[in-house]
């Protein structure tokens, strides 16, 4: 049977704006009560393989014009390969680095002539910080590497890991199929296979969890706080710790309420909501406490907050202070006191 003789599916589905072809095939399968992986594999050449979607087959089973389909789903268009993109990027990088080295050389030359940092910055249209860098070393520091989550298999790695855990002999094709059918995901087979191969070969090492929310840079935070505590007054340390506590709270609330969580069951969502609510409950007074006119009373207010906090909230506060390295003993030693009596400065 040739491809154009494939009968159209009984239920028709319109491609929607901004949709990928893979997602469209999923919707098509859902409308026709077929397994997504089954329909997806039906659309490849040879049939039932794991290749890419064939435009002619998709056009036949949807009863739509191929050109109209390509217009609606641009990723169906045959890939156009632009040769030498990597080489170009590399050349650009080399050129940029060369320029920066030249700039540093000129700045250093001018500095040797006795120009001030400010004058150098003005002359070369750079920040004084850059001038400082140029004076420190003639080799420019490397550019900061962009920390970016890989979008391939985003949110699916945990599921793949769980499947591998449950059955180490599971095939990549089965995992691909289950991701399509059970998790409503549209990963490509090569991506799944590559990830699984990597996982299998690096099994003994500690697994790299990529999907977690970016870890809070505790080290830098605590260093900062400690520096404050050693060099500055207890009041400044307290203010710094409070500010950091707020920052942590916001990050955690953002994490808890983000929609990227894999576990979207009702209980899990409710649980996360409760947690976020508790954190917000603890911290909602803190911004007010840092008000310039009220800062003087910060110690008193914090004591009050601590005393009236629930056990759960206290645990949270203590662990976060530990995290940022704040010496909280002056508060936590109050713990044995009953939380019920109101603070003396309560209006």
């Amino acid at each position, binding site marked *: 049977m040739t491809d154009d003789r494939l009968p*159209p599916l009984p239920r028709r589905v319109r491609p929607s704006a901004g949709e990928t072809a893979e997602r469209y095939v999923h919707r098509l399968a859902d409308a026709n*009560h077929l397994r997504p992986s089954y329909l997806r594999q039906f659309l490849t050449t040879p049939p*039932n393989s794991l290749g890419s979607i064939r435009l002619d087959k998709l056009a036949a*089973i949807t009863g739509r014009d191929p050109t109209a389909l390509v217009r609606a789903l641009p990723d169906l268009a045959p890939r156009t390969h632009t040769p030498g993109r990597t080489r170009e990027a590399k050349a650009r990088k080399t050129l940029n680095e060369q320029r920066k080295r030249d700039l540093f050389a000129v700045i250093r030359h001018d500095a040797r002539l006795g120009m001030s940092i400010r004058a150098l910055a003005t002359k070369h249209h750079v920040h004084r910080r850059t001038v400082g860098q140029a004076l420190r070393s003639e080799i420019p520091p490397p550019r900061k590497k962009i920390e970016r989550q890989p979008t391939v298999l985003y949110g699916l790695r945990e599921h793949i890991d769980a499947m591998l855990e449950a059955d180490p002999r599971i095939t990549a094709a089965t995992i691909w199929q289950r991701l399509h059918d059970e998790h409503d995901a549209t990963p490509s087979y090569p991506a799944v296979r590559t990830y699984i191969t990597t996982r299998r070969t690096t099994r003994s090492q500690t697994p790299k969890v990529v999907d977690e929310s970016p870890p809070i840079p505790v080290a830098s935070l605590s260093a900062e706080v400690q520096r404050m505590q050693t060099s500055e007054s207890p009041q400044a340390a307290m203010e710094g710790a409070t500010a950091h506590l707020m920052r942590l709270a916001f990050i955690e609330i953002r994490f808890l309420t983000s929609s990227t969580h894999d576990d979207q069951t009702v209980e899990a969502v409710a649980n996360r909501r409760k947690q976020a609510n508790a954190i917000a409950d603890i911290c909602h007074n803190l911004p007010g406490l840092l008000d310039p006119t009220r800062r003087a009373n910060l110690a008193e207010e914090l004591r009050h907050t601590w005393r009236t906090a629930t056990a759960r909230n206290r645990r949270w506060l203590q662990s976060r202070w530990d995290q940022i390295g704040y010496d909280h003993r002056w508060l936590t030693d109050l713990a044995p006191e009953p939380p019920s009596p109101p603070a003396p400065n309560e209006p």
Partner: protein
Amino acid sequence: MVNPSRHAVETADGHRHLSTLQGWRRFTSESVTAPDLLPRQRFSSLDDAGRADYNELRLDYHTRLAAVATSTLRHVITTGRRLTLLNRHAVSARRGLILSGPAGTGKTTAITQFGKTHQVIDAARHPGLTDRIPVLYVTVPPAATPRMVAAEFARFLGLPVTSRANITDIIEAVCGVAVDARVSVVAVDEIHNLALSTRNGADVSDTLKYFSERLPATFLYAGIDVERAGLFSDVRGSQIAGRFTMIPTGSFPRTGEWTSLIATIENTLRLQHHRPETLVGLADYLHHRTAGMIGSLSHLIRGAALDAILTGTEKITKKLLDAVDLDHAAQTHARRPNTTRQT
């Protein structure tokens, strides 16, 4: 003017795939219009090309003469209509219809004509909706397994069935789509291909039963002598017998209806020199030849009409009718039991 030969090829293709949704839709939407006969003088003055075109048009017309409204056909349509209305709000134990009778007695014609009627009624009740599939028509393949029957359902709907698909997935897809598309009549032809005495036959019967539970539709079965084939014996059979209305089809007795049938068919003929009432006069002869089988009668008259056009005599005579049988006896499946009966 449309090129008649190309037109003929297209429609023939559609006829062959009655058990696919596209073919079925073409069948239900097509209406045969009789070509007008040319005046005698114009006909005789036609050149070769013109005559070929004219003949081709009429040949095509005679190969697909409209079904004749026999009493059986009317009975099936009324009963089927009543059952579909009764089943419209039935939650379970829907009633069905079985057509049973010897080969060539118009079972398939009756069942497809009912399907066509139902489709037209449904389209009239829901104007503008093109994605409804009111009728599902499948034939039971010989030596059928449950998977094959489920695949037949899927094939009609246009759902892809590959070797990887398991029966559960196919049934799920068929039921899901059928419910979404509001299937209300399921016509299962060649039901005699399943023998309940064999294991596969019993399994297929269970599969059909399952479909009838899942689909809110009226089921129509048609098959050759199903009561003799054991469809009603045993436990499964008794349930079928309890839920299905049986309409027997058979040969027509030599009565007034037979004569009026022939008159109806004769009126649809488009032959240049045919004298009206010739066939009606041959009613006794035709009844003897066809043993009252409507399928054989249709074949005989249509065959003779085609011969009349091809040979250029342009009229059906007893002699021509005699010749048809001899020439087509070996090929025409529908008339084979008839020839044996005649001896």
